[in-house]
């Protein structure tokens, strides 16, 4: 298991009774790397200061297996996790995640209902966007998934993520399904449309780093990639453009472990972390958008910066919110299993 238990977290667990008497604290878990560093400055440090609490940090690129083992003992060490919403939902259904009492989260009221679940509140947004080589296509690059599928109008090498989420949605949009009628996905139709494009897909990428490298090296003329990776490549000077048009908006969420050692403080943390004012700090540190759209009204985010953010109201309106509910349903699970055989044949 790829878990790094930080020493502070272990210490916190060992010294819990003694420490709890002195000050309020929680153990917060995210995915590590530059992303966790950015949110430490943007969210965690300000919240700790605001509430006068201590936030111990831990990181795990994939929290799910750890979540399972921790809650199995009935005495988890972690309190709050930042993880794909899907983990919060299935964790909740399997009794590992606390069902949220929204009366204790007044700041959640300003967050649109479709961003929340009974187990989670949105934390940050990213997007799967259509990126393309500007040297190859000039100003008239592909602007929709229909363009991406049009190999005659837009010749060139293509790459997609080797994962059905967002890819099936793109296929259906390319096939003419209206954006508001996507869910529940017509999986058969989506795979049929993907089958058409398959001979023209040069690479099915499996990691974000790989998707960025394909763009930077000019190996690929257009691809679906995460906006943060695309902007990083552009910053390095590669001739790459992208559009939020028909992008797929996805979020990670905050949820609380069942039996969390510091439940009350966890609620306080959640409420503060999703407040518009704190959330507005995100864009200063990383290319991911605030989970609370009210952050764009605080005046902390400059308009030109908002234009680069996946969750800003203008951009959000041009995108499709991935339905985590559908993807965690049996039909969604089935579509995921079918992916492997699609890639193989």
């Amino acid at each position, binding site marked *: 298991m790829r878990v790094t238990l930080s020493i502070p977290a272990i210490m916190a667990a060992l010294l819990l009774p003694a420490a709890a008497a002195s000050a309020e604290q929680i153990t917060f878990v995210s995915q590590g790397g530059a992303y966790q560093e950015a949110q430490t400055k943007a969210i965690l440090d300000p919240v700790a200061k605001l509430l006068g609490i201590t936030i111990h940090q831990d990181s795990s690129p994939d929290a799910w297996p750890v979540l399972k083992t921790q809650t199995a003992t009935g005495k988890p060490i972690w309190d709050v996790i930042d993880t794909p919403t899907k983990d919060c939902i299935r964790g909740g259904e399997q009794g590992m995640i606390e069902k949220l009492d929204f009366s204790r989260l007044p700041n959640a009221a300003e967050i649109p209902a479709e961003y929340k679940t009974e187990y989670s509140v949105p934390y940050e947004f990213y997007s799967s966007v259509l990126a393309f080589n500007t040297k190859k296509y000039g100003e008239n690059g592909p602007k929709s998934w229909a363009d991406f599928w049009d190999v005659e109008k837009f010749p060139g090498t293509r790459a997609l993520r080797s994962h059905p989420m967002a890819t099936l949605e793109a296929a259906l949009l390319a096939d003419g399904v209206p954006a508001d009628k996507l869910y529940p996905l017509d999986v058969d139709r989506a795979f049929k449309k993907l089958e058409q494009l398959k001979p023209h897909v040069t690479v099915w*990428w*499996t990691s974000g780093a790989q998707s960025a490298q394909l763009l930077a090296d000019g*190996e690929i003329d257009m691809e679906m990639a995460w906006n943060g990776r695309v902007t990083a490549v552009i910053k390095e000077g590669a001739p790459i453009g992208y559009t939020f048009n028909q992008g797929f908006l996805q979020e990670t969420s905050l949820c609380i472990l069942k039996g969390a050692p510091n439940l009350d403080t966890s609620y306080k943390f959640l409420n503060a972390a999703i407040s518009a004012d704190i959330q507005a700090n995100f864009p200063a540190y990383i290319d991911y958008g605030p989970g609370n759209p009210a952050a764009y009204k605080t005046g902390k985010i400059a308009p030109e910066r908002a234009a680069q953010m996946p969750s800003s109201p203008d951009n959000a309106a041009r995108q499709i919110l991935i339905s985590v509910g559908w993807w965690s349903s049996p039909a969604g699970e089935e579509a*995921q299993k079918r992916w*492997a*055989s699609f*890639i*193989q*044949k």
Partner: protein
Amino acid sequence: MSTSSVNPSLAHQRRERRLVLLLLAPALAVVGGLLIVPLCWLAWQSVRQDGGFTLAHYARFLTDDVYWMTFLQTFRMAFIVTAAALILGYPVAYVAAGASRRWSLFILAMVVLPFWTSVLVRAYAWLILLQRRGLVNTALTELGLVDAPLTLVNNEFGTIVATVHILLPFMVLPLYATMQKIPPELTMAGSSLGGTPLHVFLRVFLPLSMPGVVAGMVLVFVLTLGFYITPELLGGGRTYMVSMLVSRNIEVYNEWGAASSISVVLLACVFFIFRLASFVIPFERIMGAR
């Protein structure tokens, strides 16, 4: 008197055996703790689901065509890589075994040198060489040999090239070890009896080098079966190996049972291959002990 003359030697033997065991203990503990125990846990996990016994994970080998296709593709890759490594490696080992001491050392050093670079670095190096705007394609297009860049990587071809490069030493070294022990007098005798060089090679040298051929082939074949990072980076997402099926089952589907069962089957395949090979050449010789 007679008993005391026997007993000391017996006691000595026993003491010696105890000493050997003591010396072996650390190694045994490492093998037991880090290999045997996890393997048992792996096998145990592959037959468990929701706290009960199940063969569901193994049934998938019969019902799920993805499993079949993945194993088929992996074995296909292993065959191609082994054949390519043999064709490329045999002449190298032949020249090294026949050359003067200095030259053979130089050739072997050249073979082993890439060994000290990380597999990851070598995979990326191939990517830089073979990609659309890479060195090879740039050279070919600028020389006017091709009109459009060739697709040399992000497919099975690129994966095979890089895998062969990484595994070539495993072919050359056992071949060299065997060839070096073939007495030159035998080929000389063949020639003196009127055999043409080709005839002597086919009738004398080649049969005598067979143990090395088998050892090299088994090593390369088995190592290819478990390759992960090279096909992952250079296969363009289409060259789907067993190791990738294991990793996807854990990362994407969280199916530890399924991942374990695949590992167990792959391990069984490897044991089977070694068993087959041991009819031709003893196991210790494959691993290069002698």
